[in-house]
C-alpha cells in the first residue's frame, strides 16, 4: 500500500516532467536561423537579426540602472560584461535556441531569442 502511494506520486511527477520536456521540444527552435530581441523594462529596444556574423562583435546597452556589454557571434548571444550587483546575466552564458532568455533583473533587461519553431531542438 505504502509502495503504491509512492509510485502514484512518482508517476504523477514523471508525467509533469514529460509534459514539460515535450513542450520544450515542440517550442524550442533551431539554432542558426534565429534572431535576438533585447527588451528594456518590457519594451523592445533592439533586434539583432543575424546571430552568426563573420566576426563576433560587442555593443553596449545603457539602461537607466546600468550598462551591459552584449556580444554576438557563432549563432549565440551573451552578456559579456555587466556592472550589476549579482552578475547572474554574465553567468547565464551563451544562448542560441529560440525561447531561451538571459535576464538582467537589476537593469530590467531581457535578451530573448526568437525563431522558427522546430521539433529537433537540443536543450
Amino acid at each position, binding site marked *: 500500500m505504502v509502495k503504491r502511494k*509512492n509510485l502514484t*506520486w512518482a508517476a504523477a511527477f514523471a508525467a509533469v*516532467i514529460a509534459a*514539460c520536456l515535450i513542450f*520544450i521540444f515542440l517550442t524550442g527552435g533551431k539554432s542558426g536561423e534565429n534572431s535576438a530581441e533585447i*527588451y528594456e523594462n518590457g519594451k523592445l529596444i533592439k533586434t539583432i537579426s543575424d546571430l552568426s556574423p563573420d566576426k563576433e562583435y560587442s555593443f553596449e546597452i545603457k539602461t537607466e540602472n546600468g550598462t551591459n556589454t552584449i556580444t554576438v557571434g557563432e549563432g549565440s548571444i551573451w552578456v559579456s560584461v555587466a556592472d550589476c550587483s*549579482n552578475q547572474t546575466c554574465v*553567468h547565464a552564458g551563451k544562448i542560441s535556441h529560440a525561447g531561451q*532568455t538571459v535576464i538582467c533583473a537589476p537593469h530590467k533587461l531581457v535578451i530573448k531569442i526568437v525563431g522558427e519553431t522546430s521539433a529537433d531542438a537540443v536543450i
Partner: protein
Amino acid sequence: MKISVQKIALIGIFTALSLIIFMVEAQFPVMPIGGMKLGLANIVTMTAMLFIGRKEAGLVLLLRIILAAGLYGTVVSFAFSLTGGILAYLAMCIAVSRVGENQLWVTSVFGGFFHNIGQLCAAAVISGTWAVFSLLPYLIISGILTGTLNGLILQRLWKSPLRKYSIKR
C-alpha cells in the same frame, strides 16, 4: 504568547543551520538556465516543520531569508527569495498534513515546484516582461527533481535516531 525554551533553542539551531547551508550553496556556480540550484536549505525548513511545527518553520524560513539578504544579498535577491520562499512554504504547509509518513518527499516536491513558480513571478514583475515565462518548463523540471532529492534526504532524516529531538506533538 508562551514559548518554551526548547522551542527557542530549536528555532535558533535550525535558523543557523539553514543559513550555513544556504551560504555554502551560494558559493557553487549557478546553472545556465534561470539560476537553478538545489535548494538544500529547504531541507532544514521542512525538518523544522516536522520537529517543531508549521508556524515555527515559517519563522525559521523568514529569519533565514532576512539574515541571508542582510549578510550578502541585494534588494533583488531578497525579493526573489521572499516570493519563492513564501509560496513554497504555503504549498508545503498544505501538503505536509495531507501526505503520509512515507510520502514526506512529496511535500518537498511541491515546495521546490512552487518555489520556482514564485521566483519566476518575481522575475516577471521585476523585469516587466512575460518573456521570462519561457523558462517555466525548465524550472518545473528542476523544481521537481531537486524537490525529490531534498525530499528523500528529509525522509531519511525523519526516520533516523535524530527524531527523538522532535518536540512536535
